[in-house]
């Protein structure tokens, strides 16, 4: 056994001891989800900063792929630093906010050029997401604006804790034009808060917009593979030598499977081991794709697999 996922069903084996070295040895790099893997709220997972440091010293790449559309990659770079992770730069971080902006730039601007004539984007989301869209060279439609001026060519639904019925209605107005794209940053139905509570995710807001408009959103984030395309374009990653590490079976692990990566589930976040085992026992083919190749209690458990 080694890097690539190959064919056949994953078997959710605990990674430890010799198995750890066999899996990590050949790997050129690891893709990490962030929330629930590297940190929980404002606390780094114990040992996580040391793991990244050891990866660097072993010459293995560490890249980050997050469905969280709240923050710009610049904010995420500062967050890494503040939580004790050294050497992580914005260019290593692929958030759904960034990738949604890149996706819209490709579709509306053809990947280059300036913004004029491309149309505007109506964003349901916070300042982090709006900033990424602007940085991609696109112009935003304002809230409550009359439907005049440059046409709105895309509605982008992200995590929006200021979501209102009025914004939903405004989005639907734009989506009456079949040329107007409907894009969502990620499908997550909810996100955990530090005390075990949950906050509604982009997926719930997207469901409202889809229902009102009768349209299906193009979802940029995991488990869809667009964010991996962005990573490959920037860093030329070889999937057969890359491991995906995440805490959410329905997004991270399925993403790994969809991109041809071997997957490691870490238990410091959303999904429980019992859920992975239930998917493994299921008869459904779709359920099998949610089973990780390996699991660890925490990513700190990966440290002994690396050279001293």
């Amino acid at each position: 056994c080694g890097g690539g996922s190959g064919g056949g069903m994953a078997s959710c084996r605990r990674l430890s001891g010799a198995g750890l070295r066999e899996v990590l040895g050949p790997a050129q790099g690891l893709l990490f989800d962030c929330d629930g893997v590297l940190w929980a709220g404002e606390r780094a997972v114990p040992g996580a900063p040391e793991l990244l440091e050891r990866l660097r010293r072993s010459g293995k790449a560490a890249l980050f792929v997050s469905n969280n559309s709240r923050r710009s990659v610049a904010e995420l770079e500062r967050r890494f630093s503040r939580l004790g992770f050294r050497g992580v730069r914005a260019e290593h971080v692929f958030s759904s906010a960034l990738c949604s902006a890149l996706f819209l730039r490709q579709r509306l601007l053809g990947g280059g050029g300036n913004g004029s004539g491309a149309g505007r984007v109506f964003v349901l989301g916070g300042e982090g997401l709006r900033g990424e869209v602007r940085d991609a060279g696109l112009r935003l439609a304002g809230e409550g604006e009359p439907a005049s001026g440059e046409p709105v060519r895309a509605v982008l639904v992200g995590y929006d804790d200021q979501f209102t019925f009025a914004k939903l209605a405004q989005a639907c107005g734009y989506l009456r034009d079949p040329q107007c794209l409907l894009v969502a940053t990620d499908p997550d139905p909810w996100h955990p808060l530090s005390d075990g509570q949950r906050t509604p995710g982009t997926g719930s807001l997207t469901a409202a917009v889809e229902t009102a408009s009768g349209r299906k959103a193009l979802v940029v984030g995991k488990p869809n593979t667009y964010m991996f395309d962005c990573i490959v374009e920037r860093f030329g990653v070889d999937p057969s030598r890359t491991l995906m590490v995440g805490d959410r079976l329905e997004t991270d692990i399925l993403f790994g499977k969809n991109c041809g990566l071997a997957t490691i589930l870490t238990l410091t976040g959303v999904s429980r081991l019992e859920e992975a085992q239930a998917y493994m026992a299921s008869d459904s083919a779709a359920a099998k794709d949610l089973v990780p190749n390996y699991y660890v209690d925490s990513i700190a458990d990966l440290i002994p697999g690396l050279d001293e």
Partner: protein
Amino acid sequence: AALPGPAPADWVQAPLDPAVRAVLVGFDEHFNYAKLCQALRYLLRGGPDCLLVGTNRDHRLPLEGGAAIPGTGCLVKAVETAAQREAFIVGKPNRFMFDCVASEFDVDPARTIMVGDRLDTDILMGNDCHLTTLLTLTGVTTLDEVRGHQDSDCPARNRLVPDYYVDSIADLLQVLGE
């Protein structure tokens, strides 16, 4: 109640009403993320002991000129998605409302006509309750849509086909006495 702070992390600290045992989603032009958050909290706290009920699933409320505003169905879907559970929908096509009518009034389905403009709510409920169903074309449905369902092999679509149609309910005047 006023929100205790600007962000969801603050809102989830506000105390929950211990007496709440159901979340009811209806048409709410003041729907917002904070309310969605609160609904999710009650549903998580109560689990199966907290009901999730929606008044109806209409996607859109049509306005004049072809415009429309989002319907209650959108808000129900948002709550269902966040809570990962399905709401009990009281409105048509669920037969609950017909049962309410039938229990208050002496209604014989065999001698009752359901008149409506929407196939997937009005006509479906009427058919499921064994009423005679009459579609009026002054609303959202076109005859082409009906024919599409009629020609389909899918039994679920066939159940959307009315027994009769009129261009407008005014056409019924012709057959009623003075």
